């Protein structure tokens, strides 16, 4: 049975352009508007999380100076900072924001396959954010269980926010998962089923590959979080004992019997580890495109890069218990998970080598997106190498729950993806808004952020080796710690405040650009991918005007010998320009 591709029925489809302000910018079904809505909301909650981290650093750097931070608040700050940054900022920004904006434009589609569902996805996400923010203001405050929400303490007396805080947290997560599922189904189906003519999977830009694979991971990993959230809600509200063992609390018997706290850890990390790659894979993809475009060179080993993304995605489902070496699980179990964890280093290293080899002998333009991309390579190698330490059981045991771990994951899944987020915003800003930003201010923003984050996280590795435990409100009489540890903490705090304030530069730059920035060229970076070839700039509803684009080559025809320009857009026919070195998409 031959089936006519729906993209071929394009002329049959109705394109109702939105008329009023409300349908255009608020209840919009246009993927580009939804992307911006996702982006703004995510950055807004991200700023809340940033200010929470500033408060934590104030306490750690200058204990007892700030009386408005008490231990209960401190734990609430930790919890909400982690949860917001990982889920409500990074996941939402990469998939809801960049995924929504880039997938249809890069694949040559008119929109996501189900725009109405896509719109619902954003509004349900906003609802989850509102529930989350409300939990700050309920009696008892937000939960202070740590972002991992480990039972039994997450719902036991003594943890802040055990009344409404934890309930709202779990409900908010469940709502977020519903929102993500609606969006994620759209992204996956769009990539698989709605590409334009000539756009094979092996011609897709790596950004799309990264976002696509991350979305698949999300669709398979978030169910575990949903289930653990439901079970914990039942443990909290109906006194079931899924996760709660027989336990006495403050001398009283809360009525739990025989549950398994380790079950929660397994479910949580079955979600939690793929979550790391849900955040990392879009960053890998985007940074590949940024490096290639600004080095005017094809990405090195495109096919290897695609398979590495898929391999990392697959492996990320069989490594989760490396977060649980200290949970008391069977040591042989730990051996298995250490092995799978270290195997991930292979495809990851392939990617890093390929990024570096892409830069090798390239015509490097040190523009702002490129600076952030190169910065990413540094921080990612750095965080990746400490991951090798922590992946080994014997080294993890002493380092677990110290600042070494904090330094590791902030380097690898905090700073690295955020640098890519900034790089990507600077890169696609002209396409999204049609305006240019101030290059010099952008460079200041990069250098201050990059060096500042190193000033924060490099010393933390040392603190970790010295044995400073993480998540402590104050150190008290810990005689094994040298006094200099406190001095280091003060320096880290000052760096953290410096980096936080530096972000003002970014917002000033972007607001200035919107207000007074010069109009940008439709393709200011001379990029090859389809989103820069739209007939309108910035692209309008429906993206492609009357005719869908036709793709004739891969996304990396830069500096092809024998051609006048140093780039050949994907929609230039094969007869009009030579194919590049990669012969992309040739089978």
């Amino acid at each position, binding site marked *: 049975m031959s089936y006519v591709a729906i*993209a071929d029925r394009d002329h049959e489809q109705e394109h109702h352009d939105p008329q009023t302000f409300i349908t255009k910018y608020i209840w919009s079904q246009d993927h580009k508007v939804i992307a911006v809505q996702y982006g703004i909301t995510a950055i807004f909650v991200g700023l809340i999380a940033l200010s929470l981290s500033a408060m934590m650093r104030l306490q750690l750097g200058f204990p007892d100076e700030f009386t408005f931070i008490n231990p209960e608040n401190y734990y609430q700050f930790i919890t909400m900072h982690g949860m917001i940054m990982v889920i409500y900022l990074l996941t939402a920004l990469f998939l809801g924001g960049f995924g929504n904006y880039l997938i249809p434009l890069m694949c040559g589609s008119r929109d996501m*396959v*189900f725009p109405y569902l896509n719109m619902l996805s954003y509004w349900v996400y906003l609802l989850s954010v509102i529930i989350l923010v409300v939990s700050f203001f309920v009696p008892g405050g937000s939960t202070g269980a740590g972002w991992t929400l480990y039972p039994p303490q997450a719902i036991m007396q003594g943890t802040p926010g055990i009344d409404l805080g934890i309930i709202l947290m779990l409900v908010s997560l469940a709502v977020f998962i519903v929102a993500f*599922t609606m969006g994620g189904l759209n992204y996956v189906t769009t990539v698989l089923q709605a590409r334009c*003519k*000539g756009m094979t999977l092996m011609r897709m830009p790596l950004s799309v590959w990264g976002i696509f694979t991350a979305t698949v991971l999300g669709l398979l990993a978030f169910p575990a979080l949903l*289930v653990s959230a439901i079970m914990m809600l*039942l443990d909290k509200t109906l006194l079931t004992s*899924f996760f709660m063992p027989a336990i006495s609390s403050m001398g009283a018997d809360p009525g739990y019997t025989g549950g398994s706290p380790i079950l929660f850890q397994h479910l949580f990390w079955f979600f939690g580890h793929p979550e790391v790659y849900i955040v990392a894979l879009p960053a890998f993809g985007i940074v590949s495109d940024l490096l290639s475009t600004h080095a005017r060179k094809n990405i090195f080993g495109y096919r290897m890069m695609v398979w590495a993304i898929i391999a990392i995605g697959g492996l990320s489902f069989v490594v989760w218990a490396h977060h649980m070496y200290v949970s008391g699980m069977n040591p042989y179990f730990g051996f298995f998970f250490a092995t799978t964890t270290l195997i991930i280093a292979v495809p990851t290293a392939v990617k890093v080598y390929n990024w570096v080899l892409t830069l090798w002998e390239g015509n490097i333009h040190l523009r702002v997106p490129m600076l952030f991309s190169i910065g990413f390579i540094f921080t990612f190698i750095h965080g990746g190498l400490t991951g090798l330490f922590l992946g080994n059981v014997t080294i993890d045991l002493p380092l677990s729950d110290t600042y070494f771990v904090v330094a590791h994951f902030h380097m690898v899944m905090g700073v690295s993806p955020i640098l890519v987020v900034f790089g990507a915003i600077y890169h696609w800003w002209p396409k999204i808004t049609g305006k240019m930003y101030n290059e010099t201010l952008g460079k200041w923003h990069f250098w201050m952020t990059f060096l500042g984050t190193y000033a924060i996280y490099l010393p933390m590795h040392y603190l970790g080796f010295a044995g400073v435990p993480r998540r402590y409100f104050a150190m008290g009489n810990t005689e094994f710690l040298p006094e200099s540890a406190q001095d280091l903490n003060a320096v880290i705090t000052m760096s953290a405040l410096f980096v936080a304030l530096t972000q003002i530069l970014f917002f000033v730059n972007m607001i200035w650009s919107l207000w007074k920035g010069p109009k940008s060229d439709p393709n200011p970076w001379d990029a090859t991918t389809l989103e820069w070839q739209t007939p309108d700039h910035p692209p309008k509803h429906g993206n492609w005007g009357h005719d869908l684009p036709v793709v004739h080559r891969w996304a990396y025809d830069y500096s092809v010998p024998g051609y006048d320009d140093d780039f050949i857009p994907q929609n230039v026919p094969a007869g009009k320009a030579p194919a590049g070195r990669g012969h992309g998409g040739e*089978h």
Partner: protein
Amino acid sequence: MSEAVLDSGAEAPGKQALVEDWSRDKQVFGVPWGKAMMWIFLLSDTFIFSCFLVGYMMVRISTTDPWPNPSEVFALEAFGYPVPLLLIAIMTFVLITSSGTMALAVNMGYRKDRKKTFWLMVATAALGATFVGMQAFEWTKLIMEGVRPWGNPFGAAQFGSSFFMITGFHGMHVSAGVIYLLVVAFRVRNGFYEKRGGNYEIVEIAGLYWHFVDLVWVFIFAFFYLW
């Protein structure tokens, strides 16, 4: 490169066909968007139910109290004798029958026989509603016997917790499916899809969901009632 090869989607045997599907432009699977999306959703939903069932197995293994004997707890009195799993057997039969009527509805949908499609879908929904009704009866009976999410007179507290959580979540899926089927059925009858090019793929998409819910029940039945 020849563009023609990319577009043909020609039938080829085995592995070659797989490679050709995945190396095509525009789309990997020769199915409508909605159907592809439903398959992906069901894959995701599979993970939800797997997590529920694995969680249930783990609490069942790790609890120290004895697990109630399902043959006794789920027995019904018939003709003066307790018959194990009587109600569950009937419920399973009803649900599997509904999958049969659904399959017929899909067939009638592709034949554009709107009347038969409508009635077969209504029959499917009615069987689904019967299933949920019997589940409500089962819940009521167990609650009357003192089974609660936080404990029960027969043994481990996790029995009631897992039972209400897993069958409740599945029952919600069935109820949502009944509503979904009815909406599609009435749209089939009033000609909604005629205005959209006479395309009845949606019947099959609803059917996929329904068969999935049925399949999940088989696993719940095996792991909860037969173990």
